[in-house]
């Protein structure tokens, strides 16, 4: 690994050294380093590019890191990762993709992640995306989550600049008492475009989803947020989409809530606008310049 590799890994997966537990580091379309353990096995797929991550029944307080780095231009990396989380397991999964594209040609990573959570399984999934360098950086993550009874999945997805184009699709099906929490933070600048789509089917009784999206769009960038929550059973869904707009940017928020059961309680809240003048006034009255105040508000908002 060279210094660029290390810097990318630090930014996307908070990795300062080789992580504890299981890991798979993928670089420029190939597996670079891997550790498979008896608790969390990592097995290469034979029919296509990607890995199966098997978290055994009852494994608790363990983690698996599967970062992807791309350091060349003109590369399209498509990877299929399937996660099988056993009953009563409780794990942290850190994914993410960092692209440093030194050439003018476009680099692209399409990560197709499918999670199968058994009964009472619990997952915290963190996914960071980052881009740097001259050429186009394109990321199209597709995440599918299938949740059995009483399972819990918390997903934190963070894209704080540098990615020229991203299309993030997340689909989930929740059975009885399953609980899904998605927190999304996106910053776009220049002419970047970020598209986010959430499709959640609340099929089980007392299933619960919460989607919290906070985004900041600067320059001429464009963001689109679309959520479709379907309540088929006595369930709860809450979507909160907040956006801050600066310069000539654009944010589109399209809510869809579809209740097919009288006991389904579905809410969508969306607010897009510039930074509130009163917030700037408060911080400037403490001695910050307009620019410093703006930066602090955005930093806090995306923290």
């Amino acid at each position, binding site marked *: 690994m060279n210094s660029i590799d290390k810097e990318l890994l630090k930014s996307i997966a908070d990795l300062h050294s080789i992580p504890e537990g299981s890991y798979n580091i993928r670089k420029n379309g190939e597996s670079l380093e891997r550790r498979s353990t008896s608790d969390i096995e990592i097995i290469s797929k034979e029919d296509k590019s990607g890995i199966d991550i098997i978290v055994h029944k009852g494994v608790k307080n363990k983690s698996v890191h599967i970062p992807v780095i791309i350091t060349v231009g003109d590369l399209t990396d498509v990877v299929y990762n399937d996660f099988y989380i056993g009953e009563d397991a409780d794990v942290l999964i850190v994914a993410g993709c960092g692209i440093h594209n030194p050439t003018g040609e476009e680099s692209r990573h399409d990560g197709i992640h499918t999670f199968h959570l058994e009964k009472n399984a619990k997952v915290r999934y963190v996914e960071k995306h980052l881009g740097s360098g001259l050429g186009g950086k394109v990321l199209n993550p597709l995440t599918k989550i299938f949740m059995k009874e009483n399972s819990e999945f918390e997903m934190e997805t963070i894209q704080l600049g540098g990615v020229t184009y991203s299309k993030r699709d997340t689909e989930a099906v929740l059975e009885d008492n399953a609980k899904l929490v998605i927190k999304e933070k996106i910053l776009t600048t220049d002419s970047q475009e970020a598209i986010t789509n959430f499709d959640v089917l609340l099929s089980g009784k007392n299933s619960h989803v919460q989607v919290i999206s906070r985004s900041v769009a600067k320059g001429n960038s464009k963001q689109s947020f679309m959520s479709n929550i379907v309540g088929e059973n006595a369930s709860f869904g809450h979507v909160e989409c907040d956006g801050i707009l600066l310069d000539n940017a654009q944010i589109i928020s399209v809510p869809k809530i579809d209740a097919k059961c009288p006991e389904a309680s579905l809410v969508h809240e969306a607010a897009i606008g510039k930074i509130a003048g009163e917030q700037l006034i408060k911080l400037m009255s*403490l001695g910050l310049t307009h620019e410093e105040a703006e930066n602090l508000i955005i*930093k*806090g908002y995306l923290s």
Partner: protein
Amino acid sequence: MLELKNIRYTVRDEKTNQERAVLKDINIKFPEKKLTVITGQNGSGKSTLIKLIMGIISPTSGKIFYNGKDITSLSLNERADLGLTIALQQPVRFKGLTVKNLLDVASEKSNKVSDACEYLSKVGLCAKNYLNRELDSTLSGGELKRIELAISLAKGGELFLFDEPEAGIDLWSFDSLVDLFKALKDKTVIIVSHQEKILEQADYLLLIENDGYKMGTKEEIYSILKPEPVCKKLGGQNE
């Protein structure tokens, strides 16, 4: 120290499209290291005056002098750097920023619980419970108001402007609030208030009415107000 010369502030009435003067020809010298309470009926321009002094809005005409220097064209943050400090009437909520974040900005240092305690205990809050709280809708209006006051104390300065500091503060905490102002006796303090208990603390009173203003010692202004109950005249609620 702080002097307003020929201050006029007008707004355009959206319905009639006519200019309407909120403040006309104000000439006041605020006594240094004294407590002046600005009082008067709703809509008489009290908060407007405070905002003009702080630089949140600019006068239509006239000049503002601070320590002999014309600060009329200085921005809000430049006035903050000179030692002007404000606690707003309506505290601001921030998604993602904590009490600690604002205390750190105000005091220009990283506050630990023990540091923050110095400011928060003065407004009746325990630093341990509040330092890492977000300044969002999880805090009540009264809590936010107390935090707003604590942030102004953390910033410090020579001229404090408090816009209706009692709003949202429960009555049993009033004595603590009064103590907070008493502790600023070596500073110049200007408070907008309707509350008699706060008026009682004033060295000077500035009574703003729709047709003008009167500035004088508390005793002088009280003598003018005497024929009517003070609070009724001032438009307060606790008659």
